[in-house]
């Protein structure tokens, strides 16, 4: 718990990196976690199959917003294939705090929107579990 709201988590929450609109974005994906009202819009500028730039806008809990913020830092400059290969395990480890099952969807909403944008989706293809991204039940 003390473990959960570490300084860097709160810092990412209050001062999200890569926050705001991205004019000229090539890929944009929006998703929500209706059970708690978390929302994230992820915008990527893809050039030569690389993430040239990224911005996100969102509202929600500290975990969902910090997780998205951390993720944007990580993917900037990465190839599309590298981005598509990021898995939930990696995101949870990267967050560096214990995430209980009830908060897993919060922690993974950022990843879901990154994947949605990377794949150029407009809507999520069925069950999030099937897609191996979100997990458990909120």
């Amino acid at each position, binding site marked *: *718990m*003390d473990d*959960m*709201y570490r300084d860097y988590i*709160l810092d990412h929450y*209050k001062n999200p990196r890569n926050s705001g609109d991205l004019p000229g974005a090539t890929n944009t994906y929006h998703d929500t976690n*209706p*059970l*708690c*009202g*978390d*929302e994230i819009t992820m915008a990527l500028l893809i050039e030569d199959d690389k993430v040239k730039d990224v911005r996100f806008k969102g*509202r*929600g*809990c*500290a*975990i969902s917003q910090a997780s998205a913020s951390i993720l944007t830092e990580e993917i900037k400059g990465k190839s599309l294939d590298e981005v598509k290969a990021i898995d939930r395990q990696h995101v949870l480890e990267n967050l560096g705090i214990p995430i209980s099952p009830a*908060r897993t969807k*919060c922690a993974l909403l950022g990843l879901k929107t990154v994947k949605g944008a990377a794949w150029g989706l407009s809507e999520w293809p069925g069950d999030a579990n099937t897609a191996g991204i979100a997990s458990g039940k909120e």
Partner: protein
Amino acid sequence: MAVSVRAAATPLDVGRIRADFPILSRKVHGKPVAYLDNAATSQKPRQVIDAMSRVFEDHNANIHRGVYEFSETTTAEFEGAREKVARFLNAASAREIVFVRNATEGVNLVAYSWGRDNIKAGDRIVSTVLEHHSNFVPWQQLAKDVGAEIVMIDIDDDGRLRRDQFTAALKGGRVKFVAITYTSNGLGVVLPAKELVAEAKAAGATVLVDAAQAVPHQKVDVRDLGADFLVFSGHKMLAPPGSGAVWAPEATFERMRPFLYGGDMIMKVSVEKTTWNELPWKFEAGTSSYVDAIGLGAAVDYLEAVGMDKIHEHELFLTGYVLPRLEDVPGVTIYGPKTLDDRVGVVSFNVEGVHPHDVAQIFDREGVCVRAGHHCNQLLMAKLDVPATTRASFYLYNTTEECDRLIGAIQAAKKVFGV
């Protein structure tokens, strides 16, 4: 209600009550648990836990058809629980009580069994933004299936139902059915259910009252209320999950087709034709959750021994204690009425700069259990224009000390988030 709502003290011996609930002496993260999530589900006294174990240890057998002592004893306890529920609600007879898993199944029973035969294309169904999803989605889907229309009634800034809109909706005509909650699980508002029922019935509508948050917290008298259907869940009133009931007058149940088909609800089966059992068994197909129902009977005994009026007064006492203290915390927004009139002990709020999920998570570290989310009230959340709220809800075993810990937990959350 002839209850003084300004009580400066509780009428309950809370210490003695707490001793009946084993879980209340538990610690969470090293702190004594302060369980303030009673609108989601209640804790269970030793008397209920034991009533259930006793069946398994002493005389368990399938009910109704066994010509041997175990089965007869279990049947007597199961049907005895039904009698207790009937008495508790002042129903005319136990045949008016159909056991279901929970309030949700109760609403669906009415929707499938009564609704499909009675609600037609062009009919109107009146509902409110206060409804729990369980008393809205079944009607929304039925309306979609048959081509009926849903008319929603709004609330005012205090969270009270817009009586003017309700009256206007009924005046608008074609209202076949009204689905209203007795008590809002999101805001703690108690609706003037008896008046609303009378008005709806005068307009020719059939009325279902969702009493999931009413029956556990106040004396509910179905004969006085005058509705056509009433549903509630046992797990919110000291009984196990898996128990609950639909109440309706016998004549109403008689006219309805069954809902679930199978063992125990039949009289005579042939390949060509099946006839139904008598009430209430016509609506109870397959092996009942009879141990859960027996637990519900024990819960009713417990609540009656304490006294529903006193329980209600105690909750208002706690609400009256916590509301001003909550208002004093900078950055806290309270949703719903800030007075004690027509209210139960449900307090919804938000802390500026801290999402409800983070509030609840930090509360957990303090041993304080509250709910954060939409509380199956997404229509209400949309109306309040918030994604979620934090909700504390009281029951007979809660104390002012736990209220103080709630306030303390808010301070802790604010400190973590530097707001």
